[in-house]
């Protein structure tokens, strides 16, 4: 169905996630790029060599979750907006999820926003814990929200009240 809807299946998503034990140690990138396309800025963006595309730029990127520091630079550099990050080190009940977000108005730290799944369905109301938008991110801000752990594999987008 993915090729008809653009909505990845649950097992595809889980396969891209590192083990929970890694997530609990700190922020880590999840690269949801499922198909061969001629593209490699994720590899170029990562100073820690944590994403590899290799000689053939059509290869599907492979993430080394151990090498990843969770710096989030790749999130803003991926033209497919295919990268997110999760961090389970802050609490046992919640995870922080970082997502690229290219819409106005930008939410502010502390705002309540609606978290959406990969089909755009409402998942939960969540709190924004940070908004990264430095010049180097070139107009692809990265929003971090705090969510219940049970929604870790579901949340992939947000909607602000006005939108």
């Amino acid at each position, binding site marked *: 169905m993915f090729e*008809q809807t653009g909505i990845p299946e649950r097992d595809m998503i889980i396969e891209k996630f590192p083990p929970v034990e890694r997530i609990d140690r700190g922020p880590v990138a999840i690269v949801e790029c499922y198909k061969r396309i001629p593209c490699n800025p994720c590899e170029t963006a990562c100073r820690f060599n944590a994403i590899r595309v290799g000689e053939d730029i059509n290869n599907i990127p492979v993430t080394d979750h151990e090498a990843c520091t969770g710096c989030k630079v790749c999130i803003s550099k991926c033209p497919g907006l295919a990268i997110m990050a999760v961090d389970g080190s802050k609490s046992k009940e919640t995870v922080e999820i970082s997502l690229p977000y290219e819409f106005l108005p930008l939410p502010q730290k502390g705002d309540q926003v609606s978290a959406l799944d990969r089909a755009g369905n409402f998942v939960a109301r969540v709190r924004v814990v940070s908004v990264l938008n430095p010049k180097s991110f070139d107009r692809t801000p990265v929003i971090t929200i705090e969510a219940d752990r049970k929604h870790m594999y579901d949340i992939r987008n947000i909607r602000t009240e006005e939108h």
Partner: protein
Amino acid sequence: MKTTELLVIGGGPAGLCAALSAAESGASVTVVERNNRLGGQLIKQTHMFFGSREQYASTRGIDIAKILEAELIKYSRQIEVLTDTAVLGLYEDGVVNALYKEEDYFKIKPKAIVAATGAYEKSLAFPNNDLPGIYGAGAVQTLMNVYGVKPGNNVLMVGAGNIGLIVSYQLMQAGVRVAAILDAAPKIGGYLVHASKIARMGVPILCSHTVKEAIGKDCLEKAVICMVDERFSPIPGTEKELEVDVMCISVGLTPLCELLAMRGCEMKYVPQLSGSVPVRNERYETTIENLFVAGDASGIEEASSAMVEGRLAGLCAAAKMGYKPADFDERFKGYAAQLKALRSGPVGEHILRGIEQIVSKEDRHV
């Protein structure tokens, strides 16, 4: 009559790269662009591009146009740019006919030409497809991203290729609702990362669907859509009405190379390249000597490959005029390797099968 060494027709990514590459080899170049600014399709592309670093991947299209324009300045003594100027005809005696601002006709006599005229949009036939509110994707993008005008409030996007997906995303960024994206094909044609971006905004992508008709008195009010079978025939009883004020038709581009056909270049219809394209040799020279082609005009592909093709065509055109740099072979091989890398995936394989049909190995012009 105006004279120049290399005439580049079209100031899109392919034309600009051809000009830069020829100037780097030492040639003098005139770039003719019918729009009032350079950049071609790039000036409408607010999203980050794919590809790799050599083709400015991860940079937004609008910014790639700026990078190329800045590069032009480095060669300002060699490259002359004429905007608001359309080439109307190429003639047997080598004379080119051009029109400035739709009033002044003039002639140019170049030693060689690179045609980088890009593409035009295909349309779709259905009842009432001429109602106001029904646009091509290019028009919607131009309104929105060049002039800052919203085309409407509620859009049905027809076509789930990269252009349909990207323009849908840009419409949503502009605050316009996208009701649905439909495509007659059984699978999404564009990159799935683009499709996922749209899906998670809650916009349904409907494959195996088409537009049956448009309804409206003075302008578009409703679209009737329906499902299609494997042979793309509408399935009766599956009709649905959508209340939309804009329909955006994005069913593909086709190479714009009438000028080349008119000049007598041997043309060939190649489905993988999305239309009728000139037969050429490995140096991008058509069957008419000193007439080169590059970019979407020689087959619909991407800006990334259009830029590399432009560099190659400019390099080879300059060499043919006597500006063959010492590192010609190295540059040629380097660009060819970039193209090979870009075309090594599933989309590229398709393109390569098309290119095989137009590249003649034998050399008619030696």
